[in-house]
């Protein structure tokens, strides 16, 4: 590393150039998050008006059956969707990594396609596609299958849409991870008689673990904090936390209540978020 000996002001110029985005990030991410914590933890006393440290907002949240049901529902949807994403994403990534087919590029474009469909449009499209008397219903009807029950306004509908939305990111990052494993490694394993499953479990998965961890973390955080899809496609009860927060904030004008829910999602995602930041940091160090 070259130290700035010739021009002593160069570090200052560096700070000057990065000051604005760092300031925006602190003002619009860290400050609101810390303020949310303070606002929900320091509660003014009803009679004296003196603010004191109190967990009463959080106690109120966990006493509210509807809110607890919302939190549990959010966990369920997140875990199911993330598991499905791995089940769908890994085979596709393996195909894209190893296929020598000329059609592989078509498959790649198809898996990337959802990246170019914004959430609100996806919600509308899936209602027309999956809704009762929608396109899928008609397709199944054409094949003689009746008795289609729509997942629209059901938990399944939310899960389908969230998985749909996250496939490109999942496949993209998993494929990038698998590309870091060299062909020679795979071939030599095959030469000593390893079958495909063993190659995947013993070689490909461990060697591309970092990308799998990143996929896991960002999918968990993304789905846990989702709003548009569960708001437009999900059941009215239970709601996912994003919808619950929006209702509390807009419909009930209960800002502290909404912040309490926000902080609870922060705390859960903090574990996963730290894992994500650590994984990326380590990856960059190894590469450097």
């Amino acid at each position, binding site marked *: 590393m070259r130290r700035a000996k010739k021009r002593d002001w160069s570090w200052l110029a560096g700070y000057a150039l990065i000051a604005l985005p760092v300031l925006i990030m602190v003002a619009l991410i860290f400050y609101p998050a810390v303020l949310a914590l303070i606002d929900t933890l320091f509660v003014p006393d009803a009679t004296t008006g003196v603010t004191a440290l109190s967990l009463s907002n959080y106690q109120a949240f966990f006493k509210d059956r509807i809110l607890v049901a919302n939190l549990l529902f959010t966990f369920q949807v997140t875990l199911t969707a993330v598991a499905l994403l791995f089940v769908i994403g890994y085979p596709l990534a393996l195909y894209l990594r190893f296929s020598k087919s000329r059609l592989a590029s*078509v498959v790649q474009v198809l898996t990337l396609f959802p990246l170019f469909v914004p959430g609100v449009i996806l919600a509308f499209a899936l209602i027309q596609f999956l809704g009762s008397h929608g396109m899928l219903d008609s397709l199944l009807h054409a094949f003689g299958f009746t008795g289609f029950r729509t997942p629209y306004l059901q938990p399944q509908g939310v899960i389908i849409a969230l998985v749909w939305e996250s496939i490109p990111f999942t496949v993209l990052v998993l494929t990038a991870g698998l590309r870091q494993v060299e062909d020679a490694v795979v071939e030599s394993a095959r030469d000593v008689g390893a079958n495909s499953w063993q190659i995947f479990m013993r070689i490909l998965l461990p060697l591309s673990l970092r990308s799998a961890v990143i996929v896991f973390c960002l999918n968990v955080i993304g789905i846990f904090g989702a709003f548009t899809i569960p708001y437009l496609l999900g059941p009215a009860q239970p709601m996912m936390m994003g919808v619950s927060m929006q209702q509390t904030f807009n419909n009930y004008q209960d800002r502290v209540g909404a912040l309490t829910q926000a902080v609870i999602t922060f705390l859960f995602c903090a574990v996963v978020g730290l894992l994500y930041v650590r994984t990326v940091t380590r990856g960059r160090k190894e590469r450097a």
Partner: protein
Amino acid sequence: MPVKSSVFKALTKTVRREGLSVVLIVALFTIIIGPMLTVVLWAFADVWRYPSLVPTQWGTSFWAETLARADLAMAFPLSVGLAVTVTLLSAVICLPASYAFARMNFPGRQGLLLSFLATNAFPRFGLYVSIAVVFYRLNLIGTIPGVILIQIVNTLLLMIWIPTSAFQGVDRSLEEAALDVGASRVRVFLQVTLPLVLPSLSAAVLLTFVSTFYEAQGALIVGLPNVTTMAVLMYSIINSQIIVQYGAIISFILWLPSLILLTFAQRFVRGNAISAGFGV
């Protein structure tokens, strides 16, 4: 006949190999393209009755009605204007910073660069609610500056990480060679460095523009009731779906910029630009 059988073998091998691709393509096409195709068909349907697989009666009779909607006429210029403003601001704020992150030495550089990952490490909607509460105190709710600010947050990671990795990827010996033959620093930057990073920079700008154009959640919670973008308008159209064609036509128009971006997709993937935006 050994020749024939080896040809046959090769053929079945190809069929088997391509067979997987074909099955994948059919499955993915149905699941991924199917919903969007349905929207496009609805946009050009006058009547569509179940269980017909295509519109019962084709036509564009809903187009004039939809395009004449007052809310649409207000929302469309607003969305475009917001996306342009946010993208330009984000570029002005972030691109010099990404140059600094890639090329300059200052204490804490790596840590500060990594700190932008925080934009991904928070559950999005919880963060928006916290920001909205701050904006409430600053009277930024329902204002255009408020929406611009909340949308800029979304662009930071992409607009810093993609250009930073591009600047880092530039071979320094090229620049030094140009300096050696007497080119000025400014000229080296404009004629050597910039052309090399331009594809990544344009990818970052384009992705930022499109993602801002479609950003709905931040605009919903901060913008309402005064600022209604196209994407926010979709919420109410979906929730009060009386006539499917309205939503279909608006979705179709709204989706066009993204469709154009899609044609560039292959190039981004090859350059791994998108992955860099996730911090991979």
